[in-house]
């Protein structure tokens, strides 16, 4: 029996290759999605965008948005440097089109907004429901990130269908800046979890013998 240790698990296999194939699957996943798993690169930008949406919703004054812009750029730059120095670099293969799933809700919402399909005065948030469905779809294709994607999708769906402002009153996630803010908060959570997955895949590894 030989062992290849990597990631959060051990690939244990006999001469015929029997054993924990999950470890090999993890190795493939981390390599294939290495750029996407560098979550801390996007978190500062996402937080800045959320701050901009908060300003658009009149929750905060404008100056913090301007002041935070250089900080967000610096944070992203430092994160890129951290990942490059600690984990190296991967040139990914050409995308096979699965990213279309994540872009689909955005396309649907853009078309709906352009055609005036949904109204801000509805007691439920249709954009929230569409986005929650999109996040759930992403969880299907990005199984290792499902522990973050599924709760975000469920919470987003619940917040979108519950009449949070009371029966018959406009839903709080109806206005664009509100549901975009909620989307960005969910994206930040997923990106932080992606970083946790990446760290877990590299942390404390003892190499294969030989």
């Amino acid at each position, binding site marked *: 029996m030989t062992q290849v240790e990597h990631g959060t698990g051990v690939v244990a296999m006999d*001469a*015929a290759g029997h054993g924990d194939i999950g470890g090999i699957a993890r190795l493939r996943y981390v*390599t294939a999605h290495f750029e996407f798993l560098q979550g801390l690169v996007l978190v500062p930008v996402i937080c800045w965008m959320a701050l901009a949406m908060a300003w658009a919703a009149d929750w905060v004054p404008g100056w913090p948005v301007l002041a935070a812009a250089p900080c967000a750029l610096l944070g992203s730059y430092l994160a890129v440097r951290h990942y490059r120095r600690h*984990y*190296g670099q991967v*040139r990914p293969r050409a995308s096979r089109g699965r990213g279309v799933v994540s872009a689909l809700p955005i396309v649907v919402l853009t078309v709906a907004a352009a055609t005036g399909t949904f109204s801000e005065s509805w007691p439920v948030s249709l954009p929230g429901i569409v986005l929650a469905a999109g996040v759930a779809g992403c969880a299907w294709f990005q199984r290792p990130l499902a522990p973050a994607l599924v709760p975000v999708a469920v919470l987003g769906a619940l917040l979108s269908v519950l009449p949070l402002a009371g029966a018959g009153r406009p839903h709080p996630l109806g206005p664009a800046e509100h549901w975009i803010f909620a989307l960005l908060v969910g994206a930040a959570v997923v990106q932080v979890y992606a970083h946790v997955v990446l760290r877990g895949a590299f942390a404390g*590894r003892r190499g294969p013998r030989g």
Partner: protein
Amino acid sequence: MPSRGASPGEVEGHDAPFEAIAALDKLIHEPARLAITTALSACEKTDFLFLLRLTGLSKGNLSAHLSKLEAAGVVDISKRFAGKRPETWIRLTGHGRRVVAAHWERLDEVRRRASAWSRGRS
């Protein structure tokens, strides 16, 4: 020197488990090299540091394994400078991609046969 090993089709003819296992490409099947080639098969190319961190091998061990794979024509190693920092990039060659894919097909076949045999005995 290209790596040798039976094609998946050749394994079809083996009923005894040992022959099927013996047909595995030992250059690829060594655990460290299996981890390296499997990671490389999931991307276009990686740098040395990524493989070092992912496999947990020492620099010397990783270099030795990569040299064997390069000598067999499985990987292509290129060195360049990014500013003042030297970078070493590793990629599977076309031959390497075929060899790794064939190896995994062979492993799947052995696994499938073992499962079928177990079901037949129970």
